[in-house]
């Protein structure tokens, strides 16, 4: 069976997909009203022109002065090859969902190898319907052409958009009229061919190959052999990126954080798209803000509940950005994601009645985003005699994700061997402590640092001596007593060797 290649060409890639203020408004009406061109910044020539500009007679290749003379209110933006590369990557990622063998043809086209895919889709028309359907999501102009060899597909796309030649003979026939200038050859070689009077591809192909290579060198004959399928095409197949990372250059400066939300939403939707395609969720996002005259600002946002949805992430970012003071206007954003996981295995109980607004992990994420990660804590217990070691609190963020909701809501054995000491300690501990000292007399609240006792208290009988170990720094013995202050507060006080008294806890 023949191979079949499809060449997808996007003539106005940057112009069509350029993110910016115009895209937030309904694009159709707005963009049509405003003539807009992209300018090649080195040659100072029009590189791409939108429909409104074309109607005024502006064509790619004209000089800026020419274009401005045709339209006084012309809007001019620079052509950015890097941006176009990014957009092409995005489109490649989309097409990768439909077609496995895919090669980039920078700056603004893609090659798709269709013949292995046709059986899956049940024929070429069905595949093309899928493809155009997925591309019509974007306000994007595209042309395609198909042929048995990759290079022929390119020529057909440029020469007769929409034509698909499924056999070598059909391809040969379709290429007869193709102008020589479209060939992907060195300009000098093209000029040489034209000067010989060869304007079309048909006469060139009918010449004997040996003669051609003797006259024009090996390059032309190799090219023609590739075109006719006698040599395989030299293409590198596309591999989707491992990590999500998107940059957005703003065309304007942002000075207040609420304005950041609109471009951020755009990036988060790209993230959502990326994650949904892979059936993944992610825990952590990193936002890098490019600032004017100031080093870039890097923000990290962690959500204990893995999320893919843009709306959820936006909610968290909104809380995070509220606390942010921008040191300088923002020129660009870069969003990258790390810590992926596969989609949640657990599902909610259908019969549990009314479900809440958030899951516990989402709530923790919300609190962390607003208050700061260190402000949301959980008490932990360790096997130690010193009270401040035995019971302390730790920021929830520093617990492993597996430790956040153990017994009740998750199956305990499923926790991976994730090197977290807190967990091991927790589990060994709670059993041993409970069995060994069931009636340890401990207060509900403990002061982070013991406070000197500064009031008159009455002591209850019953003394507990706790001695710190020699390896714990200063060795001291404390005699703990229960006491009640004059205003009725129950305190846990201790006396040191030097007869100093401290309040360590409160039996609230």
């Amino acid at each position, binding site marked *: 069976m023949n191979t079949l290649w499809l060449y997808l060409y996007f003539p106005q890639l940057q112009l069509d997909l350029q993110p910016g203020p115009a895209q937030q408004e309904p694009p159709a009406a707005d963009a049509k009203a405003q003539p807009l061109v992209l300018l090649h910044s080195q040659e100072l020539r029009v590189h791409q022109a939108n429909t409104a500009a074309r109607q005024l007679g502006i064509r790619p290749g004209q000089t800026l002065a020419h274009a401005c003379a045709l339209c006084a209110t012309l809007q001019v933006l620079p052509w950015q090859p890097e941006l176009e590369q990014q957009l092409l990557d995005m489109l490649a990622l989309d097409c990768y969902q439909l077609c496995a063998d895919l090669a980039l043809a920078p700056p603004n086209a893609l090659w798709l190898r269709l013949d292995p895919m046709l059986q899956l889709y049940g024929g070429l028309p069905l595949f093309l319907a899928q493809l155009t359907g997925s591309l019509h999501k974007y306000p994007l102009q595209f042309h395609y052409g198909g042929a048995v060899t990759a290079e022929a597909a390119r020529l057909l796309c440029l020469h007769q958009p929409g034509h698909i030649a499924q056999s070598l003979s059909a391809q040969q026939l379709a290429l007869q009229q193709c102008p020589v200038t479209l060939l992907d050859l060195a300009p000098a070689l093209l000029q040489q061919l034209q000067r010989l009077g060869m304007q079309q591809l048909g006469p060139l192909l009918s010449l004997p190959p040996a003669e051609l290579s003797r006259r024009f060198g090996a390059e032309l004959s190799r090219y023609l052999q590739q075109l006719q399928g006698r040599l395989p095409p030299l293409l590198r197949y596309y591999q989707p990126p491992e990590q999500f990372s998107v940059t957005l250059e703003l065309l304007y400066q942002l000075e207040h954080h609420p304005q950041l939300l609109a471009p951020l939403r755009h990036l988060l939707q790209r993230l959502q798209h990326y994650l949904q395609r892979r059936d993944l969720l992610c825990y952590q996002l990193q936002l890098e803000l490019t600032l004017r005259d100031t080093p870039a600002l890097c923000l990290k946002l962690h959500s204990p509940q893995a999320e893919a949805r843009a709306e959820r992430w936006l909610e968290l970012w909104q809380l995070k950005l509220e606390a942010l003071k921008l040191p300088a206007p923002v020129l660009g954003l870069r969003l990258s994601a790390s810590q992926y996981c596969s989609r949640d295995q657990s599902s909610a109980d259908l019969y549990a009645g009314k479900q809440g607004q958030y899951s516990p992990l989402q709530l923790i994420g919300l609190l962390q985003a607003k*208050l700061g990660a260190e402000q949301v804590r959980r008490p932990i217990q360790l096997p130690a005699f010193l009270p401040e070691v035995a019971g302390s609190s730790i920021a929830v963020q520093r617990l492993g994700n597996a430790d956040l909701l153990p017994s009740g809501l998750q199956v305990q054995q499923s926790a991976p061997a994730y090197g977290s000491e807190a967990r091991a300690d*927790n589990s060994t501990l709670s059993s041993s402590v409970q069995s060994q000292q069931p009636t340890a007399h*401990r207060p509900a609240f403990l002061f982070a640092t013991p406070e000197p*006792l500064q009031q*008159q208290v009455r002591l209850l009988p019953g003394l507990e001596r706790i001695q710190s170990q020699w390896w714990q720094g200063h060795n001291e013995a404390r005699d703990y007593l229960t006491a009640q202050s004059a205003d009725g507060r129950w305190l846990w006080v201790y006396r040191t060797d030097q007869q100093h008294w401290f309040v360590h806890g*409160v039996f609230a």
Partner: protein
Amino acid sequence: MQLSELKQQGHVWHLSQTPQAQHISCPTGYQELDLLLGGGWPAQQVIELRTAFGIGEFRLLLPYLQHQTKRNKLLVHINAPASLHAPFLSSQGLPLWQQLEVRAKAQDALWAAEQCLKSGCCSTVLLWQQTLNIARLKRLQLAAAEGQAELFLLRSAEPTQLSLPVGLSLSLHADPQGLEVRVLKRRGGWPGARQLVNFSQRWPRLIWQKDRHHAGQAAPVAVAL
């Protein structure tokens, strides 16, 4: 002030229009307190406790909190005056994974309390907060009803503070035998009732026995600094 205004502010209400949730109550774990409150803590409400820190207010709530652990939801402590001591919690059967300690500034604390109540994944929120206006309180009340959670608002017992339109407001006072509870305000009931909650059964090491009482007084500890 007109009657309609009073009604709007929740100071006067019709007995026939008491909300349904009023009748749901969770046992407090102390019989005398259940009698005083007509069954227990009102569910899905804001409950105000006027109390000093450390006289036994947490132990008063403890049987209720132990009961709530069965719901497998979070128990959030916002701006507690000192950090929670994990060995005490686990000895009382409160699972540590359900506990969440949050520290925040006053305004953020109210926000956090509202989010926790609304979330539907918290059984109870304990909020230590001095100042609160009526609008914020109403939001908290709505959030509590939405998320089916209880909010205990712990405030110091200064008499000058604004009285809030909460469903239940109690003031707690230290007593040698336990805790004296006075009803400051109770929806569908009369204020002014008082009751001694006896801790001698549950907390024998934190009360003054009659004989011990004198012994304790005989040997006070004066601390010079």
